[in-house]
């Protein structure tokens, strides 16, 4: 709606390629990264650009090859102990450097807690545009258009980023499908210079405990209960069994189910902020993951 602001020194023509941030923890890639590589491949083809995967971590073995099999032309690898486990400050500084050096036009980041923590931080130093929770990404009207639900899902806003680069988006798991990997695809793996040192970091991960909680963003079917369950999750388990799904619930409901829950439902499920804020937008598949994050297994 608004005309170009013209007050930036950014030469948008100097930026090209589509980047995907490949979130990994301890060698385990978040499934949304594969979904974004598939989506990014389509965008890159349409724009006549390359698809670039960005992997940060320590001793990253087979991930770059898998990124290529899943569509990347190039994989930038920043391999250093400073990147394991994830922390926003070293990741952010490394990303700022890579963007400055290589000038991507578009960057896609999974809308996980880690991805949103990362995206919010890295968009600022590059003065990049960052659009949250996109459910549609497309080239239209000669520009890149990002669409996202707004006002609790009653509206779908089109967000554009005319004068700044990169054009960044976060996308929730399950919004776009992941294509099957093609082991015959070819691509290039590049070890990039690591510009962060442990001494410069401001944070320290004291403890990390993952694994006993099923990540419901990975589940195809979630049967969720709220306060209406009045502490009885059994019918939910019955339905989940019939549908081959996972059970989740709001925090209060799960707390109430507390002591009388059967063994396997010692599965805490927690709502995130979305639960109060957003209703699902049809037909966005992201609605499955909005409001419910994890179910303890």
């Amino acid at each position, binding site marked *: 709606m608004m005309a170009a602001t013209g007050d930036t020194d950014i030469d948008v023509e100097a930026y090209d390629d589509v980047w995907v941030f490949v979130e990994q923890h301890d060698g385990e890639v978040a499934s949304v990264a594969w979904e974004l590589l598939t989506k990014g491949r389509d965008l890159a083809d349409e724009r006549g650009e390359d698809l670039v995967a960005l992997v940060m971590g320590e001793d990253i073995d087979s991930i770059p090859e898998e990124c290529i099999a899943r569509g990347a032309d190039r994989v930038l690898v920043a391999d250093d102990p400073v990147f394991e486990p994830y922390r926003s400050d070293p990741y952010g500084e490394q990303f700022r450097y890579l963007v400055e050096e290589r000038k991507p036009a578009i960057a896609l980041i999974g809308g996980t807690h880690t991805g949103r923590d990362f995206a919010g931080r890295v968009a*600022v130093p590059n003065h990049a545009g960052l659009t949250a929770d996109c459910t549609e990404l497309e080239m239209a009207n000669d520009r890149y258009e990002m669409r996202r639900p707004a006002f609790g899902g009653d*509206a779908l806003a089109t967000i554009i980023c005319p004068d700044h680069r990169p054009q960044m988006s976060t996308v929730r798991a399950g919004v776009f499908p992941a294509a099957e990997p093609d082991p015959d695809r070819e691509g290039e793996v590049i070890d990039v210079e690591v510009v962060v040192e442990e001494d410069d970091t401001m944070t320290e991960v004291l403890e990390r405990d993952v694994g006993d909680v099923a990540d419901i963003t990975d589940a195809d079917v979630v049967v969720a209960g709220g306060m209406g369950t009045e502490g009885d999750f059994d019918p939910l388990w019955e339905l989940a069994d019939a549908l081959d799904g996972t059970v989740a619930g709001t925090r209060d409901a799960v707390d109430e189910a507390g002591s009388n829950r059967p063994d396997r439902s010692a599965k805490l499920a927690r709502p995130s902020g979305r639960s109060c804020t957003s209703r699902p937008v049809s037909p966005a598949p992201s609605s499955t993951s909005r409001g419910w994050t994890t179910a303890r297994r």
Partner: protein
Amino acid sequence: MDNGWNIVVCVKQVPDADDVSIDPDTGRLNRSDAEAVLNSPDYNAIEAALSLREAGGGTVTALTMGPPTAGEVLQVAVGMGADDGVLLTDRAFGGSDTWPTSLALARAAEELDADVVLGGEETTDSSTGQVPPGIAAHNGWAQLTYVEELEARPEEDRLVARRDVEGGYERVAAELPVVVAMGFGENTPRTADLHRKIYAETEFEPTEWDASDLGVEDEVGMAASPTQVGGMATADPVPREQSMVDSADELAEKIGEVR
């Protein structure tokens, strides 16, 4: 830190989520009917700020950017126990996306000599969750998002947080100053004390700063915002039907039909 931490809590005024509707004829948002309220996740941020002050002393200052009416959310925070409130208001801020919004809040936090800045996980209106990390990035400070619990370690000048991460949790220690985004519903916000509430609504006057007070007049508003809203469409409502079934299997079958 002898006198405790300078704690700043960011609060945003939003249209009441239950009140925002779309006019089915015009396809426009009926935003004006909606009552303006404090963003609900920000109650958790205020509670966390007040608990930190109880643990280690110091002061809690509520901070908001918005039109003059946004002063109301500062009253809510002061009523709950915040010591003071700052309102960033200036037409120049209008049309700001998360980049300039977090810049203005970051400069104000610096001005307030903040040790800890707290905010909510996200807002109920545009729900980006990008403002707290943006504040941290503008100031080059540490950040902790999706926080479940905080533990002050003033002797180390650090704040330790338990963060919710996919599949579990982590505990992270951050050097001060640090920006915290509290997870929604992670604590139980206290209710305002009646006397304090009366004070907040009758006597309390927030400090007001405009863009030039913060030295950001050329870096805020629409012109400094990398993203722009290029259009808005109403989402088609999902057709809904209801019927009663007797067993989980029957329900599963019905769900199978529409999946």
